[in-house]
């Protein structure tokens, strides 16, 4: 009897999981944004929301769980059921949090559904006639022997880590000053209190367009569409490529059929002109990636970030 019940139970579970994928989505989907409303990640999710809702045929509820610099939201996402009704927005912070050792989750606790936007990191410095481009900056710093004091958006943030990595790659003496936010670092650089910042284009684009900061180099695979005149590290002869990204992930164990529905929805959403306009004004490049290619990207990006973050912790 017990065994029969067990079999029946298993059968119903299987059936229900099959039907779950078939009639997915049948209720509201919770999109956990691990940062507060109005932040970069939040803007992306809210700009994607209308077209994703249309493509999926369900209502998406955005929940901002902003504690612990992303730690609370990601932890909550990992702990929820992988039924496709809870998703979150992975970024490089997902990896640096792991490296800093403040959280219980690992990068492999997520099923990555899509990469939607990428933004390189950009090294931008305050106005100084001797600092026009990478060559003049390095030769000036080498002759003066002064360190380059770079503001990052927070201690242990990916900008902090990338600043250190850039210093190594370029052979420059970079001193990182962590600020409370990217905009605080930008305003310190504009005021000449620090030499520059390593941030994402969206955070420095107004300062660069307003001729208060000079962009030196970006770290992307290709030039950022927000900063078309700034060369990449690769173009400048350095083997270095690392981008900030924003995508969609679910807790590990997502049904492949549901994942496929999401991939379809994202493919439609990124074609939406309203979203494209928003992405452009946010300084991000739409660069969708799915499946195996995405997994390779995650592997390649997370490895150095986790290692460097561990080193900061020492």
């Amino acid at each position, binding site marked *: 009897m017990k065994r029969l019940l067990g079999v029946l139970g298993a059968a119903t579970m299987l059936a229900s999981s099959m039907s779950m994928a078939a009639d997915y989505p049948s209720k509201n989907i919770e999109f956990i944004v691990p940062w507060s*409303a109005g932040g970069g990640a939040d803007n992306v999710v809210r700009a994607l929301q209308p077209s994703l809702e249309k493509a999926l045929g369900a209502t998406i509820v955005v929940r901002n769980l902003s504690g*612990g610099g992303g730690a609370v939201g990601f932890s909550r996402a990992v702990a929820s059921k992988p039924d496709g009704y809870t998703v979150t927005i992975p970024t490089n912070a997902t990896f640096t949090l792991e490296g800093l050792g*403040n959280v219980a989750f690992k990068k492999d606790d997520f099923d990555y559904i899509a990469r939607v936007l990428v933004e390189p990191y950009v090294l931008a410095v305050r106005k100084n006639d001797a600092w026009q481009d990478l060559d003049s900056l390095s030769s000036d710093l080498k002759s003066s022997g002064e360190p380059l004091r770079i503001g990052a958006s927070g201690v242990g943030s990916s900008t902090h880590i990338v600043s250190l990595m850039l210093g190594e790659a370029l052979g420059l003496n970079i001193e990182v000053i962590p600020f409370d936010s990217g905009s605080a670092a930008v*305003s310190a650089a504009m005021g000449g209190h620090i030499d520059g910042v390593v941030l994402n284009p969206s955070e420095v684009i107004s*300062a660069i367009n307003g001729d208060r900061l000079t962009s030196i180099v970006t770290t992307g695979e290709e030039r950022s569409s927000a900063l078309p005149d700034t060369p990449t590290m690769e173009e400048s002869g350095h083997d270095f490529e690392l981008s900030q990204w924003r995508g969609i992930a679910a807790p590990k164990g997502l049904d492949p059929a549901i994942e496929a529905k999401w991939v379809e929805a994202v493919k439609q959403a990124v074609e939406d002109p309203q979203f494209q306009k*928003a992405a452009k004004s946010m300084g991000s490049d739409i660069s969708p990636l799915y499946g195996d290619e995405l997994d390779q990207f995650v592997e390649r990006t997370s490895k150095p970030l986790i290692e460097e973050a561990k080193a900061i912790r020492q």
Partner: protein
Amino acid sequence: MGDYVEALGLVFQWHVLLVIGGGTLLGLIMGALPGLTAAMAIALLLPLTFGMPPVMGMGMLLGTLCGAIAGGSVSATLLNIPGTPSSVATTLDAFPMARRGEAGRALGICIVSSFIGGIFSAVVLSLLAPPIADFALRFGPAEYFALSVFGLVIIASVSSKSLIKGLVAGLIGLLIATIGTDPVAGVQRYTFHNLSLLTGVNLLPALIGLFAVSQVLKDVVDYFGPERAEHSKNEMDHASPRWMETLRHWKVLASSSVIGTIVGAIPGAGGSIGSFLSYDQAKKMSKTPEKFGTGHPEGIIASESSNNALVGGALIPMLTLGIPGEAATAVLMGGLMIQGISPGPTLFTDNGSIIYGIFIAFFVANIFMLLIQWFGIQIFVKVLQVPRKLLMALILMFCVIGVYAVDADIFNVYLMLGFGVLGYFLNRYDFGTAPVILGLILGPIAESNIRRALLLSSGDWSVLVTRPISLVFLLVSAAFLFFTLWQNRRQTTSHS
């Protein structure tokens, strides 16, 4: 000029005006509910603006922001519960006045002061934004540290009953502010592996706990106590804007509006301290400083004109530099960017009519704020006729909902309740809760900036005195401290 004409056309359409008015009304309601902040109100309405033209959308959000700040003082006045952090200083005098049975007068002064502060900052925003933004950029780590020291000196001024007790309360705030990840080294302090504490104690649960929950506890104790205070006051004075009474204190109005606008324009200066600074300064200029804290109109005027001037001030770095100073303007900026407009210096050249439209919409929002409050004041004071036992239960409910909604984190609710108990005892033994809030707001700013300043100077402390702005703030702080001590001493000797 052509841009201005075009901008007028963008704003003065009936549906745009309607939306701005609606935003202001919603902001007022949300601001008046404890636990819902201006930033949250804007974030809630943000998705509605996606389909609107930029000026209309921004107009609605600006209305919401103005309304929320003004609404925060309604609950501060009537219930001793600041709806937003920037109305904490309002509670100091408006609530005692309302308790005397002059709720209508207190609100009347609030309304007029808010309007004048808001309009003043709107004028400054439209005429002087670029130079003020340039001045704000001169604030580096050393200057922020000196500014926060200047803010901490105010603790001496807002601790009405006993200076020592006020300082103890301020230190409690500073101590609590050390919880969380170290801002420079990244080490965890007193977090006990609780993820919710990684970024420190959230200000909102602390604020709501210290003011709202502690007030509820006090009322519960009073209710069961010997006096059985069912209603705070049954008689009600005439509720209407008090133009003449407010304008008579034009000096306080002017200086507080200036302070509010400038502090608002310095990004990350902890905006809400603007109203404290104005309060403190009004008290120092006043001929009757001893009346502050007992329901004195000058105290209300200082705090209220300043906290609404803060709004226009905060828009200055956001629009001219693309740097949001605090949470509410950060959400506003997000709204602009989703519209496809990136704030910053280029906004003035590329989108002239839009930026002027935003200026005009901000004026209009302030006028709506005045009109809605003018009619609303009669309804607001009715709150006091609700039996206190029902009212307190309702307030507690809103507090729990609001605080939970910040991060959707139940831990914040526990934190709020803990702060409520702390606040109850602090008030009962005359330590006061305003100094705790000052410590909580200023502690992290002071700490992270002194450490950044020393990182930049390679450990040389002289940066604090060799940089002019920093030196001025430190000298003025020292002068104010001695002045307050002297004033305090004179008062105690004259009393005895």
